[in-house]
């Protein structure tokens, strides 16, 4: 008799770990291959023994098939990420009843509600042979489907108010109606379902922006039909998954709370030797490393391509390597098969200092928290050291087998995203520009020379209506350089723009290295009176240290003066994060007029201010 289970490997693993986070990280590499149910229960028991904080999370699962057997997987994947899950399973097949206000589900008040269904639950017609229908009948189905699902989600908005709802459809067990010919057929079932999914995802994106759709088809892509699903359990008990299938399914569904409620990875910090390329450049020289069209160099080229994908997905890349700086620089600049070049890295730290020191420096330089780093290194020594010294950093150990390198980041939930915008695509460029600015500052020495060498252009817009969502976003996101920290929605901004008593002024900043976009905002009220009140004054931390705030403020004071205003009043509202600007008004020669209150007499406005000389200022005023 064969004995497959080895609970001891779980106990052994736990022995070696010092924190739940470390144990969880090790377990997650295990969880991808076949962790048996017994091992999983042992892991749950051990995870619970750690004293670190767990956050409670209420999850409701509504299924049109048996879902209770997924219980252990939910608990397991929750604990891996520090969630103590309170699970509610709606009675089997009671989807519609439970989505009524006042139901047990609604009393449970879930944080997340999962609707696990089959396509036919929403529209029975989807179970009929598509190729048996006329084109008109077939074309009608997606519309009927969307309106039926929309109705269901509308009731969910009432029944589980405030809960995030995730919709997932089970992949079909049966083969395609037209079989082998499907791919060629005008009424192709595969094409039909792709179209249906497109309609489904745009419905959710547009009508239910806080809800999500997860494509169950991924199970088949990863594990194959026979690996993911279990015919025996499906036909005998209406439970569709094999143990591995159930595990992977829940892992995917847990990504939503994980990504929304645990610290986000923002920057991937990479080692060089045997990570970005094969071999050790310090020993073998640039010509000796493996990076090119042949094995094993092609594995590293492929890995760099994956990193480029992640860069454009919105993650920053940085290098932290123990090497001679010149060797690494030469490869990055001159090696013909490098995919990633200097312009792709937010920071390149190459020296012989311990890596934890470098990581702390990097956090300061990029103004990011250590918990937003993902550290990727082939050396078990370095990985262990970072885990020990900086436990908040997530660590990926790169395999010594080149074949396993390209996919080593593929399964990380931390690198998944829940939305994608233009800003994400271009984020890294801002950081790369900042790095270059700093390099220039070092060569300049004198601040004033440096600022002049940037050839900065400030574009101020007064009451412009084109960037309402960005303006709202910066009031929500700016913490450090923010005098009053008032948060405003797009509707608030719109109402200020419509109100004659308010002025909305903002600026964008560009220089020889590129455009920073809109980085500063001033909201002023009482514009129709003699004394203007500055309600909000903030600037993105991207551009701190360039006197842009001074130039912007003085230029705006001149605008007020031109409007024949007499005085400007301002205030500072302290928060835990904005001590940077506690002296701002005083430094800019505003006179204290009460506790944290300041005012400026426009009669005293000097003709020039030193900060203004660093900028070429353009100002657009909407009337």
């Amino acid at each position: 008799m064969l004995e497959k289970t080895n609970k001891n490997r779980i106990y052994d693993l736990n022995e070696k770990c010092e924190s739940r986070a470390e144990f969880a990280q090790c377990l997650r590499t295990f969880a991808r291959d076949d962790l048996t149910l017994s091992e999983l229960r042992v892991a749950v028991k051990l995870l619970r023994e750690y004293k670190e904080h767990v956050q409670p999370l209420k999850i409701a699962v509504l299924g049109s098939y048996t879902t209770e057997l997924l219980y252990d997987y939910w608990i397991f994947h929750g604990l891996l990420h520090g969630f103590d899950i309170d699970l509610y399973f709606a009675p089997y097949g009671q989807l519609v009843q439970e989505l009524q206000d006042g139901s047990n589900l609604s009393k449970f008040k879930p944080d997340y509600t999962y609707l696990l269904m089959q396509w036919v639950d929403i529209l029975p017609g989807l179970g009929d042979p598509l190729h048996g229908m006329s084109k008109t009948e077939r074309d009608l189905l997606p519309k009927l489907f969307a309106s039926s699902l929309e109705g269901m989600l509308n009731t969910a908005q009432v029944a589980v108010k405030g809960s995030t709802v995730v919709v997932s459809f089970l992949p079909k067990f049966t083969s395609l109606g037209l079989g082998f010919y499907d791919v060629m057929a005008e009424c192709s079932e595969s094409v039909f379902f792709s179209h249906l999914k497109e309609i489904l995802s745009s419905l959710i994106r547009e009508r239910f922006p806080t809800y999500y759709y997860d494509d169950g088809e991924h199970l088949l892509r990863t594990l194959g039909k026979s690996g993911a699903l279990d015919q025996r359990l499906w036909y005998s008990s209406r439970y569709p998954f094999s143990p591995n299938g159930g595990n992977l399914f829940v892992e995917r569904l847990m990504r939503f709370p994980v990504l929304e409620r645990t610290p986000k990875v923002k920057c991937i910090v990479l080692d060089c030797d045997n990570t970005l390329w094969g071999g050790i450049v310090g020993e073998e020289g640039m010509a000796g490393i493996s990076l090119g069209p042949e094995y094993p160099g092609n594995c590293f080229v492929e890995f760099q391509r994956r990193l480029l994908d992640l860069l454009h997905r919105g993650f920053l890349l940085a290098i932290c390597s123990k090497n001679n700086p010149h060797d690494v620089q030469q490869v990055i600049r001159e090696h013909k098969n490098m995919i990633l070049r200097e312009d792709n890295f937010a920071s390149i730290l190459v020296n012989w200092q311990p890596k934890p020191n470098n990581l702390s420096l990097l956090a300061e330089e990029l103004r990011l928290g250590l918990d937003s780093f993902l550290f990727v290194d082939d050396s078990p020594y370095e990985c262990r050291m970072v885990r020990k010294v900086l436990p908040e950093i997530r660590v990926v150990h790169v395999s010594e087998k080149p074949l396993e390198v390209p996919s080593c980041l593929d399964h990380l939930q931390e690198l998944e995203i829940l939305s994608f915008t233009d800003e994400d695509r271009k984020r890294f460029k801002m950081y790369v520009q900042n790095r270059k600015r700093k390099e220039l500052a070092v060569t300049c020495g004198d601040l004033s020379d440096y600022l002049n060498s940037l050839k900065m252009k400030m574009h101020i817009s007064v009451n412009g209506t084109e960037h309402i969502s960005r303006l709202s976003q910066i009031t929500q996101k700016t913490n450090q350089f923010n005098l009053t920290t008032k948060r405003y929605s797009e509707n608030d901004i719109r109402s200020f723009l419509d109100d004659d008593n308010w002025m909305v002024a903002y600026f964008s900043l560009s220089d020889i290295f590129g455009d920073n976009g809109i980085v500063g905002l001033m909201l002023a009220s009482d514009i129709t009176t003699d004394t203007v009140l500055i309600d909000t004054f903030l600037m993105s931390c991207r551009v701190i240290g360039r006197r842009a705030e001074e130039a912007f403020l003085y230029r705006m004071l001149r605008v007020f003066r031109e409007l024949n205003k007499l005085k400007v009043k301002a205030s500072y509202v302290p928060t835990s994060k904005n001590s940077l600007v506690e002296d701002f008004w005083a430094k800019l020669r505003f006179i204290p007029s009460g506790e944290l209150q300041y005012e400026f007499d426009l009669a005293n406005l000097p003709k020039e201010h030193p900060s203004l000389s660093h900028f070429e200022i353009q100002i657009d005023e909407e009337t």
Partner: protein
Amino acid sequence: MLNTFEKIQALMVEIFQVPEEKITPELKQEDLENWDSLQHLNLMLALEQEFGVTLDVDDLNTLTSVPAILKYLE
């Protein structure tokens, strides 16, 4: 080393969350409240993983007592 019965017993204790002495060599599904249809499936899946066997769909309905399971495994 545990014998086959002891291994089954350990699995049942874990799945049904009952004390060891409740799992006797004569135990039948109807004698144990926690051995419901849902936990029965968990047990079947665990048997497959622990003993490296693949059960037939009909076995799922007939392996409803410790003697039946023991007989199947031997």
